[in-house]
């Protein structure tokens, strides 16, 4: 009798569990139908509130947003700020939610987006408004660098207003590791070849010359190697079809990038940028190429520039500022368009950009803010931003639409995992960037 009862219990358990599995099997649904999101008439100039979607939900980013909201409260006391920040995956969660909201014709009053080509999907879909009128109204044309405005302009229209700027082409250096390898850490190598010679010396000591992380960090290195080898003009040409991806110069840059990948850590595909930077901080590796948000990681571990670490522009890119920026938009059919305008005014104002950037660790897009208010690294970045040639980052959405950077990421990882050679990689990059030259 006891036996039988047990059978009953066990099989009930099995049935319940398989039932649950079948239910979960029904989860995959269709992508649904979409309707046009022309809702232009709704909202008018209502400025009672402004709902803002960002992925600034924790750490220095959240602190920056809080500082910005405080300025907003002072400048526009009648408009209520509604925080629709969504954490997770460096914005990928927020973008999924945003994609759904926009498709349903239910946009937030403003949302965070990388400036540049990443906006193209929203523009093509007719989901965001041209805000070039606000540039004149707020007097931004005079205070943003001319080359930045050039990069922002699509067919004579501008679709977002940048709140902060980051630099992509920075090398983070561990001076102790270099000294051990007999390399002088105080003078950066003149070009890519000299830098690679130094890497070879580091490799000889048994330490890792360069650390890398998952897909986009490898693309991040690639874009800066391309920038270094091709120079800013030909690099810009990569994004409008005037530089040939199939050409010999690109091939030689890819070969050098491949050698650097060869020297890097083997667990790269499992690491985000911060764990990838960690060996450089700990003295197990010499270099890491990462955007200047890395400063926040050094600050968090109480390390001082000049002693514990050094930084320079990626060799061969001195005088070039490879930029990416966060910006805010005015969605088509926003319920509180007046609130949106107020928000855009605050994030582009000198007070707003000062409050936000000193906390977040980025630099303001405006050039009329006193650098003395900022910490040391940001001062140097601000100077570079004002004087250098500005080019757009691929890995962070400024240079090409998401579809292109996704395809590039996949080709790059395929290569670094050992499933293709340099020539195949180049062919795949040609295919990935085909849509840019049309």
């Amino acid at each position, binding site marked *: 009798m006891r*036996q039988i009862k*047990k*059978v009953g219990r*066990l*099989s009930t*358990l*099995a049935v319940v*569990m*398989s039932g649950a*599995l079948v239910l979960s*099997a*029904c989860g*995959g*649904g*269709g*992508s*649904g*139908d*979409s*309707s*046009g*999101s022309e809702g232009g008439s709704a909202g008018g100039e209502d400025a009672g509130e402004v709902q803002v979607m960002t992925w600034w939900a924790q750490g220095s980013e959240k602190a920056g947003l809080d500082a910005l909201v405080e300025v907003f409260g002072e400048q526009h006391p009648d408009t209520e700020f509604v925080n629709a920040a969504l954490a997770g995956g460096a914005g*990928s969660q927020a*973008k*999924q939610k945003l*994609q759904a909201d*926009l*498709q349903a014709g239910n946009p937030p009053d403003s949302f965070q987006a990388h400036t540049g080509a990443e906006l*193209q*999907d*929203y523009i*093509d*879909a*007719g*989901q965001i408004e041209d805000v070039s009128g606000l540039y004149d109204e707020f007097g931004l044309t005079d205070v943003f660098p001319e080359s930045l405005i050039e990069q922002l302009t699509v067919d004579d229209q501008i679709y977002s207003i940048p709140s902060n700027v980051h630099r992509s082409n920075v090398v983070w250096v561990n001076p102790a590791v270099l000294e051990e390898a007999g390399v002088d850490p105080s003078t950066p190598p003149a070009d890519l070849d000299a830098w690679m010679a130094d890497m070879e010396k580091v490799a000889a000591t*048994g330490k*890792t010359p360069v650390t890398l992380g*998952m*897909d986009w960090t490898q693309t991040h290195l690639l874009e800066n190697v391309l920038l270094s080898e091709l120079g800013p003009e030909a690099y810009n040409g990569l994004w409008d079809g005037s530089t040939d991806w199939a050409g010999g110069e690109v091939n030689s840059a890819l070969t050098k990038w491949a050698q650097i990948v060869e020297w890097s*850590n*083997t*667990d790269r*595909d*499992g690491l985000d940028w911060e764990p990838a930077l960690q060996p450089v901080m700990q003295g*197990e590796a010499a270099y890491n190429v990462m955007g200047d948000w890395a400063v926040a990681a050094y600050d968090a571990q109480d390390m001082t520039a000049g002693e514990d670490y050094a930084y320079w522009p990626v060799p061969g890119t001195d005088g070039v500022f490879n930029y990416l920026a966060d910006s805010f938009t005015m969605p088509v059919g926003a319920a509180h368009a007046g609130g949106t305008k107020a928000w855009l005014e605050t994030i582009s104002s000198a007070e707003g950009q000062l409050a936000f950037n000193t906390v977040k660790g980025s630099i303001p897009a405006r050039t009329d803010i006193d650098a003395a208010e900022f910490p040391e690294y940001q001062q140097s970045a601000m100077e570079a931003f004002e004087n250098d040639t500005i080019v757009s980052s691929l890995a962070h959405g400024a240079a090409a639409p*998401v*579809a292109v950077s*996704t395809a590039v*990421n*996949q080709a790059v*990882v*395929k290569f670094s*995992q*050992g*499933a293709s050679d340099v020539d195949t990689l180049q062919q795949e990059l040609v295919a990935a960037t085909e849509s840019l030259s049309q």
Partner: protein
Amino acid sequence: MTRVRSWIPGLLLISPSLLLLGVFVYGFIGLSFRESLTDKHTAAQATGRDEVGFVGLSNYTELLASPAFQHSLRNLVIFTVVFLLGTLIIGFCWAWVLERPIKGEGIFRSVYLFPMAVSFVASGVVWKWLLNSNVGEQASGLNRLFQMTGLGFLQNEWWTNPRYGILAIALPAIWQLSGYVMALFLAGFRGIPDELREAARVDGASELQLYRHVVFPQLSPVALSALIIIGHMSLKSFDLIMSIANQSAYSTKVPAIDMYNFATIYDYANSAAVGVILLVLVALAVVPYLWYDARARKRG
């Protein structure tokens, strides 16, 4: 009239679920299929600002012809075969051992079944660390363990190997589901009446013959259920792969990951096509089972 009255209450009872299933499962399957026959590859088309054309089955032929998608399918086949064999063999052996009354059987049963209660995402995070691909001085996780136990030659690059990386994902999957297969088999073993075994022994059957002719035939429905359940789970694997690797890792790419990638770049047509291909694959696994089940019920 009485006959009509007798089925109306029944129909009313099931109609809410019928309606929901009809719309949210079968309706959406139909919508997905329709989407997969279009050229909706861009954001502008997704929102209806650009025209969407009908292209027939060309999304399917292009997908199936592309080396990248063939690689995903190949990974899926390897993963499914290894996952199935692993869970069935291990699950059966455990059930076979636990079938004889041993001390603390309940404890063992719970211990083996427990990994199934852990979510794939949680175990994926742990296995990501265990399956670290560094070897030598920087090794951690299993590779470090191999070094410490003098098995250094076993160190390998795990899931980042472009040819066999997918096998490293099968490892945690097998670890999690073997206990469940064990529970299924154990129920099967317990369902065989002792009288049958005794009768066989009385007739002079050896222990081997007893299993060959009495026990195994009665276990085959259980084995089939296990095959179907594990098989269709394997075809849909997504969360485990995303939490150990990521969506651009070439070595661990399977169709479900491709579907996700297409959807994130507004390529809804290809995303839907991959979804339909997956659905067909799962149906190939499940439909014969349903058919078999229905036939068995009619007989019984």
